[in-house]
């Protein structure tokens, strides 16, 4: 008998949210703490349940593997009315992102232990529903189900920004909502179109179906716009700094850690199997936009004085790398019989992009946590207000340093592996792109180190800063696993890369996507 592990980790957060809504907590002072503890309980349980997934995935030698199923399919809506089913599956592309989601959620709740004081129950319910939506979107193996969860993510995030955000939250929340909603409705139209082309919403059916190239271009445009807004790719990025700055810490962490990855996940999941034609044809467009994102994001980050805004722009730059990796093509030799050069999407770069998604989720998530901690103490995010913190808060400074270095991509830390693979793949395909992207790495080091220097080095001149308390046990506990994982992912990248290979191999073997140049 196989245990429906995917459904279990998918519905556990939703169950937790419903339970929290129904349970009446007493009116005493500890009520809020109880609610948060309950939230941590449900999300940690989800994380614990997802660990066997990671260990067993791709490990055929394990004797336990037969007890777990990585694919489930059940009846959902009458197939005479609409051909869809509850079909969830985890493969090499989604496994690490699912683990990242279940890993980060309890940390965000713990991070909100002191900072969220109003309407705690609703907040925890929103976070749990958000986790439900994210796991659902990552595991869905049916277009309708995917769209369904895709939108479920939207509403809790809208409330998290709109209710628990800072001064200008309504503006940021509405901007976030409208941007994403426009994108998703375009995707919805494309989904319906695909449904009538293929006759089913199921991924398997859609992946096997060959849509004619001209239709592919239109459909890809709708999908790409929706994902591009979510990533966000330049020029659809303007909602991101607003949303990040206004969102509470937990919101920022989830937004940067997982929600942004939904866009790149969408590209990697659909671009190659469903839209091979436009993906190859317009790869240069995406590469150029990604490069603009890398450099523009880095330049904007350099110009910021608000720490949170700086990290928000650094996200745009880092996700530019991911996009560059997903659309990197490299020469694979001459076409049979002709003189034309054949290009194929770079395996390394795609693998690197996937790795970078996880690494960025970890490092940027941790950076937002760190900013949140200092904001709780000083109620400002301006760089000017700090300086010389290394002496006052040594543990904080160490954590910040490791995270900063991971974000820059120092060898031995998580950020390096992904960026290295992406740059290698890009360089083989197009030297210019590779060189330009490499300048992004340098700029990244500049703005992060400038940030670090301004906040931590020098004399502690401001009187308010002298009395700052260093991290307490709770804060260390929530940062340690993230920092540890950054190091593990930097030192043992193969364990994580191996999880992807099986799926990526089939992706590349079954559909050779050749771009012809004339």
């Amino acid at each position, binding site marked *: 008998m196989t245990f429906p592990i995917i459904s279990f980790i998918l519905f556990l957060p939703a169950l937790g949210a419903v339970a929290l809504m129904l349970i009446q907590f007493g009116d005493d002072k500890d009520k809020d703490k109880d609610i948060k503890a309950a939230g941590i309980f449900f999300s940690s349980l989800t994380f614990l349940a997802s660990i066997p997934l990671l260990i067993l995935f791709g490990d055929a030698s394990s004797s336990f593997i037969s007890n777990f199923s990585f694919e489930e399919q059940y009846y*959902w*809506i*009458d197939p005479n*009315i*609409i051909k869809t089913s509850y079909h969830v599956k985890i493969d090499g592309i989604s496994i690490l992102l699912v683990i990242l989601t279940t890993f980060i959620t309890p940390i965000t709740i713990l991070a909100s232990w002191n900072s969220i004081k109003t*309407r705690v129950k*609703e907040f925890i319910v929103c976070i749990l529903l958000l986790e439900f939506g994210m796991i659902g979107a990552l595991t869905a193996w049916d277009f*309708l189900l995917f*769209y*369904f*969860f*895709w*939108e*479920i993510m*939207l*509403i809790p995030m809208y*409330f998290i920004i*709109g*209710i628990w955000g800072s001064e200008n939250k*309504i503006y940021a*929340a*509405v901007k976030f*909502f*409208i941007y994403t*909603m*426009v994108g998703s*409705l375009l995707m*919805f*139209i494309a989904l*319906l*179109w695909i*449904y*009538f082309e293929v006759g089913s919403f199921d991924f398997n059916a859609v992946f096997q179906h060959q849509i004619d190239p001209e239709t592919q271009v239109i459909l890809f445009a709708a999908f790409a716009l929706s994902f591009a807004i979510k990533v966000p790719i330049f020029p659809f990025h303007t909602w991101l700094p607003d949303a990040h700055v206004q969102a509470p810490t937990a919101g920022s962490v989830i937004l940067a850690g997982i929600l942004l990855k939904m866009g790149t996940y969408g590209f990697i999941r659909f671009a190659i199997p469903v839209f091979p034609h436009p993906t190859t044809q317009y790869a240069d467009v995406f590469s150029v936009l990604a490069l603009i994102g890398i450099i523009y994001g880095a330049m904007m980050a350099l110009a910021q004085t608000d720490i949170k805004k700086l990290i928000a722009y650094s996200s745009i730059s880092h996700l530019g790398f991911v996009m560059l990796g997903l659309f990197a093509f490299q020469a694979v030799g001459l076409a049979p019989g002709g003189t034309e050069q054949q290009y194929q999407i770079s395996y390394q770069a795609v693998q690197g992009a996937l790795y970078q998604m996880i690494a960025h989720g970890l490092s940027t998530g941790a950076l937002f946590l760190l900013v949140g901690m200092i904001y709780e103490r000083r109620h400002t995010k301006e760089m000017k207000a700090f300086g010389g913190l290394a002496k006052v808060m040594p543990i904080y400074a160490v954590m910040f340093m490791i995270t900063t270095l991971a974000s820059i991509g120092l060898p031995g830390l998580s950020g390096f592996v992904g960026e290295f693979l992406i740059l290698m793949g890009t360089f083989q395909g197009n030297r210019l792109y590779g060189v330009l992207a490499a300048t992004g790495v340098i700029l990244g080091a500049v703005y992060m180190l400038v940030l670090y220097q301004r906040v931590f080095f020098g004399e502690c001149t401001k009187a308010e800063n002298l009395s700052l308390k260093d991290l307490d046990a709770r804060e260390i506990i929530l940062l340690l696993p993230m920092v540890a994982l950054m190091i593990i992912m930097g030192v043992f990248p193969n364990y994580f890369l191996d999880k992807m290979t099986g799926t990526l191999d089939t992706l590349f073997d079954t559909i050779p996507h050749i771009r012809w140049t004339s």
Partner: protein
Amino acid sequence: MNETEVLKALQALLPILIISSIALLILIIEAFIPPEQDENRTISFFISIGGMIISLGYLIYQLTYDVGVGSYFGGSIKVDHFGLAFSIIICIGTLMVIMASHHYLIRIKSNLGEFNSLILFATAGMIMVTMSNDMMTFFISFEIMSVALFILAGFQTKYLKSNESAMKYFILGSFSTAFMLLGIAFIYGATGELAFDQIAAVLDKIAAAKTDDYYLGLFGLALVLGGFLFKLGAFPFHQWVPDVYEGAPTSVTAFMATGVKTAAFAITVRILFVIFKAEDYSSNWVDVLMAVSVLTMVAGNFMALVQTNIKRLLAYSGIAHTGYILLAIIAAKVSQGKTDSIDTHAILFYLLVYTIMTIGAFAALIGTGKRGLDLETLDDIKGFAYKNPLVAMTMAVFFFSLAGIPSTAGFMGKLFIFKAVISAKLYTLAVIGIITAIVSVYYYLRVVVSLYYIKDETATFPAHRTRWNYMLVAFVAFMLIILLGFFPQLGFYLLRI
């Protein structure tokens, strides 16, 4: 007609009998309660709730086990799956409206007993509308429904807007009824028949022969359709809707927006698909409905953008939703082909969802007010979420559902409609529908933003207590919206699609 036939008919029409006899019973009981004993009037509330639950249960039993399906009283009443499914939706709506009206009526100092009895009369009329199978039965039951609603619209007798609302509704409604009656006369003139089946048979022959009577029938079709479009609040007969909805007591507005619409859609579908099924007629009404549905969606959604009064906003949104359901009707006709069966799943599911979420939204809106203070505008409800989070949360979900956001039933409703429309290869209509749906997100979101609006972080909000009956309606509607959003199949089981 012998005794057993009468008994069979009564068994089949039991819900109508229960509802109308309870309506009469309430009037009699009311006569014996002295005017100063207002609290005793709750008895009429409980009797009507009980009666509606029994009728609803019986209707579901009838639909599930095919009880009493057939023609009665010389074919003037026809109990079939189609009518029963619409009746179930109507009864769900009525039950929720009665539930939501209870304390509200005391609050607006209206008479509880008469209100419940009028609502029940209207409901009996609506159920008869869905089951009627000849022109006379249809017309009379349509009038039973309309007359009760004319009174209900003006039920807040001391409130000027309510009087205006009733007056407008009555005069315009009478006009539309007169035109509809003229249409029925034309049809009778063309065919010499009143029963739907016979009219259909004659019209088929006339349409094939293209005699003068064909054009007479066409006139009849135009006038009857005009009457229906008026009741549905479709373009260009939608101008009365916002005024009437705004002035009428909120629970009556909820009833008008859902029950009347469901009944009117039932009879519209029956008359268009049964009587005017001949190709020469159907091509005409499909073309007209296409134009009407597009204009209705556009007018409703774009006018709603600038509304600040939530009742008016919901009125325009109701107009827009009429447009979506009209799309489903067109799609059903276009993809019907030569068969006699009508694929009503999109229409029925949407009406079910629309009924639940609209009444839920109105009930939550009633719940935001208290004696002497009804919150109606977007400014009024600013920050309400901090006074009563539970009501605000359900309200937000209803508005998300109206906007068609996934995980709510509103999304599933729109999905089935657009899927049906695209199946019928009506791409332009689908695109217009989806674009107007995108527009609608903006104004529904405005309400949610208002609910959670906070100007000053430190401001304190007095807690707002909400009566149990509004909470019950809002909570049940909330559960149904989420449940149907995740498992639309439940709706299909209920309506036996």
